[in-house]
């Protein structure tokens, strides 16, 4: 770890303006996560265009604060009304809601705040300690490898997400295709599908993200009933201390679940939804009383909430290192990096590049987890109000913010058309099990992937063998990555075809 850069990052973080954005981001995140029907990708997508006037560090810190805060916020609705505010709090429902029904809502909410904060604290610390090794790994990767890592991330997402394999690949390819409209920016080559000037700069990826995450979600929400509390949920303050004690006396569960979240979060496409269930399942498996889970066992809430905040640290690893989102939220985060002129990859880890910014972001997350603890515990008795807000009030305001934020970016009418078109496409993609995360990854990575492909082909005089032949080009990581991609995509089908031939 570059100590001087780390110290500079501390000073950069602890100034009034930056700290205001840390606090604002976490609180907005808690609210966004607590309102059923929203969620961190949507909240971050709407805020994304609003960060344009900010400096890059404050903008990214605000977005990350929303991401981190929403992980805790999602537990509010899960515990109080048996509806997760975010999918990463789904497992919290299993024991959190029964606790609420037993009059222990305050305990459950304080467990959620404490477990979220502690797991977030130690996973970010682990990431900071691991960062020197991570820096070495990232700097060892060259241009052809960066292109292949982008493809590998896409391939992993298509394997991990539900729906058919072909659907995932189609979504990824379509997302990459979107970025080819307009002139090829990274390599300054003229390329226009239309002579219309409005399309000269291509389709804005922020508009695509807002369409997919905001408009599509609001269309879906408009067709659903429920999701709000019908009566008062009593939350007593006496349970708060009990919740804190419960979490502190279970350090193994917090540590194990946080690490599960971190490792799963680093897998592209997995995200907190998967880590939530994996950590909960592990808690059940390792318990002496597995039958008590599902009826108000506090350990269930500890495990699920520790894991989803641990995921935040894990998902940052592929996002900042290679520009591969570990989840929808980090896809928006990468969009934020690109919008502010930052490029995920080696430059984020170079002392003369953006290493200070990277450390500032991680330190901001550390501080954010402390804020989650403080705000979460202080506001426990008032958090129930979030669950009473009717979605009929949320939907039009989200649409208005989406339109305003998108249009204000470039005053380009194509952007308005974009958010509506991709809103409708996104709605039906989710409806028919097409991977939106793969599509988003394609949109976010398209320019980076093309730039690296183009440069790689320049190095090899147009030959694709640079990705496969280690002897001619002296690159051994590339063929290994190529093999991994091939095995991931086609291995099961080739195996089946060979078995069919043998039989």
């Amino acid at each position, binding site marked *: 770890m570059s100590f001087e850069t780390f110290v500079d990052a501390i000073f950069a973080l602890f100034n009034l303006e930056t700290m205001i954005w840390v606090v604002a981001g976490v609180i907005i995140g808690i609210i966004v996560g607590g309102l*059923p029907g*929203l*969620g*961190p*990708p*949507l909240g971050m997508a709407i805020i994304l265009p609003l960060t344009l*006037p900010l400096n890059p560090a404050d903008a990214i810190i605000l977005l990350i604060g929303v991401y981190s805060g929403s992980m805790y916020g999602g537990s509010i609705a899960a515990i109080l009304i048996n509806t*997760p505010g*975010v999918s990463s709090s*789904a497992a919290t429902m299993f024991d959190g809601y029964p606790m609420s029904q037993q009059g222990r809502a305050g305990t459950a909410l304080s467990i959620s705040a404490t477990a979220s904060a502690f797991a977030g604290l130690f996973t970010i610390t682990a990431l900071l300690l691991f960062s020197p090794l991570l820096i070495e790994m990232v700097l060892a990767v060259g241009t052809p490898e960066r292109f292949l890592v982008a493809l590998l991330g896409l391939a992993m997402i298509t*394997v991990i997400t*539900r729906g*058919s*394999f*072909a659907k995932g690949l*189609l979504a990824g390819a379509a997302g*990459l*295709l979107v970025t*080819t409209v307009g002139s*090829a920016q990274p390599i300054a080559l*003229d*390329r226009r*599908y239309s002579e219309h000037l409005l399309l000269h700069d291509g389709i804005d990826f922020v508009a695509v993200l807002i369409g997919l995450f905001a408009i599509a*979600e609001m*269309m*879906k*929400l408009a*067709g*659903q009933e429920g999701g709000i509390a019908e009566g008062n949920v009593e939350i007593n303050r006496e349970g708060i201390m009990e919740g804190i004690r419960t979490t502190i006396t279970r350090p193994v569960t917090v540590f194990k679940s946080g690490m599960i979240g971190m490792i799963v979060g680093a897998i592209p496409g997995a995200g907190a939804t998967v880590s939530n269930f994996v950590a909960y399942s592990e808690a059940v498996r390792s318990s002496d009383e597995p039958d008590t889970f599902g009826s108000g066992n506090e350990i269930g809430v500890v495990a699920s909430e520790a894991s989803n905040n641990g995921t935040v640290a894990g998902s940052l690893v592929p996002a900042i290192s290679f520009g591969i989102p570990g989840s929808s*939220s980090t896809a928006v985060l990468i969009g934020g990096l690109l919008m502010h002129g930052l490029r995920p990859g080696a430059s984020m880890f170079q002392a003369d590049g953006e290493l200070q910014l990277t450390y500032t972001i991680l330190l901001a997350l550390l501080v954010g987890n402390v804020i989650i603890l403080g705000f979460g515990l202080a506001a426990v008795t008032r958090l129930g109000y979030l669950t009473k807000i009717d979605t*009929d009030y949320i*939907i*039009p*305001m989200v*649409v*208005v913010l989406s*339109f*305003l934020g998108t*249009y*204000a970016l470039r*005053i380009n*009418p194509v952007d*308005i058309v974009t958010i509506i078109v991709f*809103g409708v496409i996104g*709605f*039906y*993609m*989710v*409806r*028919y*099990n097409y991977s939106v*995360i793969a599509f988003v990854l394609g949109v976010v990575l398209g320019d980076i992937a093309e730039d690296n492909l*183009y440069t790689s*082909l320049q190095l090899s005089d147009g030959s694709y063998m640079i990705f*496969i032949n280690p002897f001619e080009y002296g690159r051994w990581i590339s063929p290994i990555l190529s093999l991994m991609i091939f095995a991931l995509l086609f291995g*099961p*089908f080739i195996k*089946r*075809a060979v078995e*069919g031939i043998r039989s």
Partner: protein
Amino acid sequence: MEHVLLLLFLVVGSYMFWEAREFSPAAAEFPRLMAGATAVLAFLILVRNYLKLMGPVVVAGLGLYWLYGGGTAYLEAGEGLFRTVVGAALLVAGVVFRKQVGESAESFVAEPMQVLGEEDVTGDVPTDEGDATEADEEESDSGAMYVYEIDDPRGPVVTGVLCVVYMLLTFSIGMLYASPIFVAMWAAWVRMNAGKAAALVGLSFVTAYAFYEFISSDIAEGWITGWEPTPPDELPILEEFLQVPVAELVTWSVVVV
């Protein structure tokens, strides 16, 4: 509707693949790859019920295309050997092992993959009706909701239509006044209580004004008409009526909100 989505991908992919032939070779490489992949995959999913027949045809067709392209390049300039070999392999697979290719293609399109399991999950090829049911019953990978069920199909349609109307209003009169009109239409659709509707309309207007005042005043201009309705801070009637500068009033509203 899934067929419409797939047709959209197929048509757009095919169009962009065709149009890319006019770009310079360097500029065309990536778009042709992605457009080709999009079109082929969309086609495979569209014909998934006939994949045992169409799968080998598509594979052989792709093989022939690469064999021709790679072979031509190899004969002319000594390049493209890899493409020639892959093309030949695909052609042979599509013709000689068409049964196995068809079954593999079917599983490629139809079956969900389990990454943590040891075996692939096999299932029947879903029909259109089955897909719709499956979409209703399965979890979505949306980040917002855990369970995805549509209770009122009119909701998404009306929301989409209102968004289009909002867009047209924006292009006509600018977003400053289009925003509260959109919210008013939404409130009318959901039969919102009049007081709450008025408050929501007011909130949307204040939000739009905040964007107008602090981010970009161009949002108040209709892109098609070029017309910019008088912003509230320049309405003399309002100033005279309220006896306070309207700009300050609205700015304080923004701060309070």
